């Protein structure tokens, strides 16, 4: 059935090409206009900030590519040297770095997937679902952020020991599969980024609550989920306190293995730095993959206000 409507042909506000041109024109104006132009002061400040931020990583490369004796010289070396791969080999020889990296990938990956999934679910519930006691529950969740991790270590270790999970990876994965910060972060994002009408449209279209979550909420929340994933992965990768209690050097994560490298009467700074560099590389890879999403998420949040 075809229905010819009066004026249908003239409904277009403007041709598509012109619409795109218009948008492009505005974007060009924004970038090239007086207000959008960065001056020398901005460039200087940004360059200095970038240098200060990147220096620790650069110093890791420099220190990791020299011998201990070269590092002890005055002035210290400021350029990378040829000993990097020797130091890598020494680090891999002195501590199970390879196994530690694999363990850390598994642990951080599992924690990241779990945290993002559970925090998004809980954040959605707290942001958009109506249920009795919602405010009180949220206050309880946020309140747990005020309890120091150290307080819960002994009971947690007793539970882990009872489960015979000491020195097992699940001992460091399960206790951190959801975080109060993540729940609060996702809730705040969804409150502002997810209009109620979108959920109502889903309900009218016949979607169940879980289908609404999966097909509507998750795509909308993706930028925030990427940010949370990045933060969670970094935190899990750098976590030292609980893994060194729950794991041993026989089955370590990267940080536990690096602690092993640093022990001894004369710590070999160059080997430690080479090991640290090895342990940092996966994090750099993750950042490269998620970087675009993260910037998108930050921008989207800014635009939505």
């Amino acid at each position, binding site marked *: 059935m075809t229905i010819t*409507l*009066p004026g249908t042909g003239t409904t277009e*506000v403007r041709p598509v090409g012109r619409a795109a041109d218009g948008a492009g024109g505005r974007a060009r104006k924004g970038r090239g206009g007086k207000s959008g132009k960065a001056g020398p002061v901005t460039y200087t400040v940004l360059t200095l900030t970038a240098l200060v931020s990147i220096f620790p990583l650069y110093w890791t490369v420099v220190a990791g590519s020299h011998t201990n004796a070269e590092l002890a010289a005055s002035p210290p070396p400021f350029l990378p040297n040829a000993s990097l791969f020797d130091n890598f080999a020494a680090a891999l020889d002195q501590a199970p770095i390879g196994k530690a990296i694999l363990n850390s990938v598994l642990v951080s990956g599992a924690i990241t997937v779990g945290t993002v999934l559970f925090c998004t679910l809980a954040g959605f519930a707290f942001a958009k679902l109506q249920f009795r006691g919602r405010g009180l529950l949220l206050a309880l969740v946020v309140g747990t952020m005020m309890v120091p991790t150290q307080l819960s270590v002994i009971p947690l270790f007793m539970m882990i020991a009872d489960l015979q999970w000491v020195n097992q990876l699940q001992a460091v994965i399960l206790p951190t599969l959801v975080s109060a910060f993540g729940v609060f972060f996702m809730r705040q994002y969804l409150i502002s980024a997810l209009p109620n009408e979108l959920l109502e449209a889903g309900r*009218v279209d016949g979607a169940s609550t879980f*289908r609404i979550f999966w097909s509507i909420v998750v795509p909308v929340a993706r930028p925030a989920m990427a940010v949370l994933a990045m933060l969670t992965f970094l935190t899990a990768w750098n976590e030292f306190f609980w893994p060194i209690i729950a794991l041993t050097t026989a089955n370590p994560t990267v940080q536990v293995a690096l602690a092993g490298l640093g022990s001894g009467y004369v710590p070999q700074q160059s080997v430690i730095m080479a090991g640290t560099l090895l342990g940092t590389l996966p994090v750099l890879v993750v950042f490269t993959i998620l970087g675009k999403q993260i910037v998108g998420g930050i921008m989207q949040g800014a635009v939505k206000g």
Partner: protein
Amino acid sequence: MATVTFEQATRIYPRSDRPAVDALDLRIEDGELLVVVGPSGCGKSTSLRMLAGLEEVDTGAIRIGDRDVTDAPPKDRDIAMVFQSYALYPHMTVEQNMGFALRLAGVGKAEIAQRVAEAARILDLEDYLQRRPKALSGGQRQRVAMGRAIVRQPQVFLMDEPLSNLDAKLRVQTRTQIAALVRRLGTTTVYVTHDQVEAMTMGDRVAVLKDGLLQQCDTPATIYERPANVFVAGFIGSPAMNIVTGEAVDGGVRVGTSVLPVDRDRLSRASAGTGRVTVGFRPECLDLGGPGDGVPVVVDVVEQLGSDAYLYTTPEGVQAGVGGSGVVVRIDPRQVPVPGQTVWLRTREDSLHVFDPVTQARVD
């Protein structure tokens, strides 16, 4: 297609002592386009959301056809809704947006494609099926929202101010298209708007709400010609009907220094007990008379619209701007007086609306 019936349907929001919708009794016939209109906070959107299942019904019932859907979830009501903001899924293409409900309902891929293509043809969206909502203009988004409703072939369309985000010119164009489309499809439609022009131009019938209470439900012509009370009289029509309350005297109602003629029967019934009468007359029902012929008024402002001209005046003997006492007159745009000039207005007795000043109800 089905009838829709509200039976004493009431909604009281938590922490509110006043019902948002108060004992609404309304029947929408099969295939009818009913427009619910009223000012902000009158309960029009709430009633629509009650029908959609997005808002609880505290007391009373809602039926679609013979089915009592009062407690049914939205997906079991066989309705489709067009939201004010369109509520298009931002991550889906136009095609996916339109086919989403069908996919959830387990309709086969071939049928989904066929129904989406047909809706796209009807709405002139064929070239935009692979675009995402952000790459569409306001008018196109509005049509996608319509398309999403059409493909479901529901028993009832619900539309919640679907034109309010469009510019004035596109709004006029689109309202004609929606009205034509809905009538061709023959689907029962409930359309909510705050714009009385939309209500008058689109609806088979118009329901006027105020403070959660149904004021009148009738054809646009009847609502305009015979408003049930002072609120409806003042709300429907642009510019609004002139409404003045004055002392009932022999032969009519005193306004300023003059008397508007009202027949004895209506005068006595409307003024019973108070000695005062409220009368209303539309701007187009006044004629300019010669000096001394009619009610003398002073012209405050002249609005020249090209096809018409409107005079904003104050009756002589009444202080300008006091208690909404001004009188608006539509006149021939070729002979307009100047501000400050005194003109004489003649009312046509048959076009005078008489209301009881206490109950605000119409007196016939």
